[in-house]
């Protein structure tokens, strides 16, 4: 195997704080960004922002909901001045599947399969977020081995999501197939592991309140070890192909810049936020599960453009591999679910809870209100990609329509989660 790409810029990008040693970038370090005074204040958007005097005639284009580059059934109403975007209004709801209404008509356990279908690339992360919220509500503890399994499955999911995202992003830029095919080749390997564990490729429905559904099948850890050990080769391959690619750099440098103040105020989370230089990763901030046991770094960007967002994904995959290697090394024996938890007719106490995790796309939260019955009184999903789209217009204004497609691609949306 050849040496990984000699690309120090990536490392510099990762350590935006310059000479800070990796391990010093820990969770207790405060964010260096906010200066004193009223900070992170964004100008509220007017109902119809004033359109500057056009050079020519304004053209209104409706992109989507059937458009190959909108990642599903997303629609943007764009006003163009020549090729420049002067206004962009996203239109949602074409995949509004009533998750929240159905969630209030279904028992707590019955909602678990529905969470698979939210962000259908990352079903296991969704499971975890929901299980975490319910465990917070009911005060449940998770056995040690189950915590490790959760970390392993969630980080594998992150690998699936980020590699597919890079493939789709490059697909949007016009590379017909190659990165996407490479990404899906790796995705199939991980999906085979998921299938061996849970019985399903995509809709895993594996986590339970107080643990996981079943223990690992024999040989599963070795299968995952093989995948994880070979994964850096794939990342190197992608990087050799893409990171210094002239076309990619020309298309992404300086495109769709998201200033950090706006990013925080608009609630952007996940890799898009960290590409703007804000060190906020819930794995470090909340330290949910057992993430405080692992050594890993939080990559940060400098400019907040599409290239940084692309690079965030690559670097986060490398960090995920590190977490996976540590988790696979340390996983103990033991039960995977608390035997005292009664999953059927599960009835948490009266109250409410908001639980959140760092899903691959950002902060995925579940807000549950229990009235003491078997069904949640209110079941709310805080979808990261929906809220990350708040700033889509701000990022796209002034760029061409072709740039809007890749800006949207780098936000990383999945319509199942955006519209729910």
């Amino acid at each position, binding site marked *: 195997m050849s040496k990984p790409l000699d690309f120090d810029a990536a490392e510099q990008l990762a350590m935006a704080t310059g000479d800070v040693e990796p391990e010093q970038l820990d969770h207790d370090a405060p964010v260096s960004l906010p200066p004193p005074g009223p900070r992170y204040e964004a100008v509220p958007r007017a109902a119809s922002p004033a359109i500057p005097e056009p050079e020519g005639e304004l053209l209104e284009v409706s992109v989507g*909901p*059937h*458009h*190959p580059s909108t990642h*599903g*059934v997303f629609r943007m109403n764009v006003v163009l001045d020549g090729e420049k975007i002067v206004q962009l209004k996203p239109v949602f*709801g*074409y*995949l*509004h*599947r*009533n998750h929240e*209404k*159905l969630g209030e*008509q279904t028992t707590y356990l019955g909602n678990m*399969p*529905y969470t698979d*279908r939210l962000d*259908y*690339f990352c079903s296991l992360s969704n499971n975890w977020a929901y299980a975490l919220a319910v465990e917070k509500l009911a005060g449940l503890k998770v056995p040690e081995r189950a915590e490790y399994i959760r970390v392993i499955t969630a980080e594998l999911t992150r690998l699936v999501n980020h590699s597919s995202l890079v493939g789709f992003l490059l697909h949007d830029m016009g590379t017909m197939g190659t990165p*996407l*095919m490479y990404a*899906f*080749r790796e*995705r*199939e390997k991980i999906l085979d592991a998921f299938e061996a564990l849970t019985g399903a*490729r*995509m*809709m895993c429905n594996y986590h339970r309140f107080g643990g996981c559904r079943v223990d690992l099948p024999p040989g599963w850890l070795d299968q995952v070890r093989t995948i994880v050990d070979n994964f850096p080769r794939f990342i190197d391959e992608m990087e050799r192909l893409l990171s210094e690619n002239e076309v990619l750099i020309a298309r992404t440098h300086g495109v769709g810049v998201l200033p950090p103040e706006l990013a925080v105020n608009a609630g952007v989370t996940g890799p898009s936020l960290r590409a703007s230089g804000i060190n906020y990763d819930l794995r470090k901030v909340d330290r949910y599960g057992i993430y405080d046991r692992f050594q890993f770094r939080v990559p940060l960007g400098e400019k907040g453009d599409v290239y940084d967002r692309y690079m965030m994904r690559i670097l986060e995959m490398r960090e995920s591999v590190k977490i996976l290697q540590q988790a696979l090394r340390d996983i103990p024996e033991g039960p995977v679910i608390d035997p005292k938890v009664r999953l059927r007719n599960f009835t948490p106490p009266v109250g409410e809870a908001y639980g959140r995790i760092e899903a691959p796309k950002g902060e995925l939260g579940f807000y549950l209100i229990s009235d003491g019955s078997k069904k949640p009184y209110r079941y709310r999903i805080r979808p990261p990609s929906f809220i990350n789209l708040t700033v889509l217009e701000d990022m796209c204004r002034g760029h061409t329509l072709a740039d809007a497609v890749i800006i949207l691609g780098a936000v990383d949306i999945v*319509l*199942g989660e955006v*519209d729910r």
Partner: protein
Amino acid sequence: MDPGLQNELSKRGIFTTTWQELLRFGYNWGRKNSLWPLNFGLACCAIEMIAASMARFDIARFGAEVFRPSPRQADLMIVAGTVTKKMAPLVVRLYNQMPEPKYVIAMGACAISGGPFKQGYNVLKGIDRFLPVDVHIPGCPPRPEALLHGLITLQKLIEAQEIHGPNKPRHLQETAPNEYPIPRYGRFDLDPPKNPEVWPGRPLPRGENK
């Protein structure tokens, strides 16, 4: 030709056919091996559709890898995912824009019946209510192999089609519709909620026809 004679001749290695039969075979053979699907994903199933077109499952083996973004160039619509009421008029419009002959595969439980979301207020309980579906693929989501199986089933359907006579397929009948009315957004539901020509009534529930 007498079928007995034809059978006898074929045993001796002489194959006979008629001009019409040859024409039918060639016409159907060409169509079934170059189905161009519409590049059109709705939800989760679309990801498995993409997976089917990737290297591992390789839908190109069956001549259906040319995903066309424009309905004008496609002749197979794979309804891959949940059709919501907000999306249903656009799906029908896309179908209307496709040239004949055209086929519909309903992929996944949601496209067939609403699937796990069938109790939702914004979920259409199956695309059959507005479009004629040729092949249904169950599953949530169906594996890529299941999509390939559905595609082969459709190819067999096409292969068996007549091009003359009363059993002609829809696209060769002059009076048969090739477009279907597009529902409008109503105040509480789609208007109309289903197309009675395509969806004549409820299916017989179990136990009724005793």
